[in-house]
């Protein structure tokens, strides 16, 4: 390993084991020899796939925010709310910062992440050099991943529905289905991402 040039070496981020990185054929995967973490997984045309899925996710998010989300009715009374109103549930008094946080977790950060991915990968997918600050922006997208919680929100909706069952009738609006589709698109997009391959492409451009 001593005679390998330093730019061909790679350290596992989970256990620090040193590996020699080589170009993999599409569909090949490299895992860490010690801890088994996935290191490199290139996929054919994966950049374009990620860009397309991110665009789809953005469009779904617009629908999810502006269409009616849930509607409740009981004893002749009814009330509908959008996702925006759900976030604003905490807006009274000193709970207000939580409203902002909820909006960020379910809408703001996912949108920021999709935009960052499109910004980084669009030029690369077209074989052009990366746009300015692509490195910082892609790293931001990476760091935001655990904080974008749209899928947790959808499961939360399910729990809320069961809690209300018996008390009132709740109907699902188009925004709910947009959210559901959004988490499927997001999962697909994450499956197409390969950090090492993208960093290589940004570095070479």
């Amino acid at each position, binding site marked *: 390993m001593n005679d390998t040039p330093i730019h061909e070496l790679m350290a596992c981020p989970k256990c620090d084991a*040193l590996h020699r990185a080589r170009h993999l054929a599409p569909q090949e995967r490299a895992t860490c020899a010690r801890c088994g973490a996935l290191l490199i997984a290139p996929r054919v045309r994966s950049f374009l796939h990620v860009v397309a899925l991110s665009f789809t996710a953005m469009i779904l998010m617009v629908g999810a925010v502006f269409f009616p989300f849930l509607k409740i009715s009981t004893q002749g009374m009814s009330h509908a709310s959008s996702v925006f109103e759900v976030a604003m549930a905490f807006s009274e008094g000193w709970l207000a910062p939580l409203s902002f946080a909820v909006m960020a977790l379910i809408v703001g950060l996912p949108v920021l992440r999709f935009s960052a991915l499109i910004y980084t990968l669009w030029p690369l997918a077209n074989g052009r050099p990366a746009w300015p600050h692509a490195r910082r922006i892609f790293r931001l997208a990476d760091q935001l991943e655990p904080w974008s919680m749209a899928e947790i929100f959808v499961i939360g909706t399910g729990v809320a529905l069961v809690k209300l069952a018996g008390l009132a009738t709740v109907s699902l609006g188009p925004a709910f289905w947009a959210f559901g589709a959004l988490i499927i698109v997001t999962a697909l997009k994450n499956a197409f991402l390969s950090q090492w391959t993208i960093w290589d492409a940004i570095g070479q451009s």
Partner: protein
Amino acid sequence: MGRNRTELSVPTARDAGLTGCTSCGRVWPMGTEHCGRCGARLRPVDRSALQAVWAWWAAGLICYIPANLYPMLRTATLGHEQTNTILGGVIELFAHHNYLVAAIVFIASVLIPVSKFIAIAYLALAVGNEQRAGGHRHLLLYEIVEFIGRWSMIDVFVVAILSALVQLGAVAAIHPGPAAVSFALSVALTMLSAQSFDPRLIWRGPARTEGP
């Protein structure tokens, strides 16, 4: 998970006098400050990073206490007002035979946060003291903590949805309680604690610098 892999034969970046970038994987000579490829700050494999883990951990634990003492929800139905703490809500769901939802809320709001505090503390103590490398068991525990921690936020979203939706004037109205804020803070702080934990420490064998 590959129990019989020969772990001693695997060289680490640290052994080779290199620091690996935790963001993109490239290695650089030890002492380099920033990764030349992705620009991330290079973190050497070092136990001093555990201080940040403990700081976030303690802050998260402090926020978790009021989250359990104060009400999460205030429900007003036909003139009656009722408040529910996290555990109170679980008990009520259970009493109404909603066993599945009671289980989900209990797991997300009680079981996961409590096990997460224990698991992070255990990992931080283990890599701080242990005389041998922790190996796959500890890495698995770390990955579970990282993966599952964010799901505790589910209860905050449930409170938000219920409070926004159930606004039926005199018939029924639900308002969020102060516990929602401290619970959300507690989840965020423990996520930061888990993120500051460096899993590469798990594999460091007997302390080389400190000696027995």
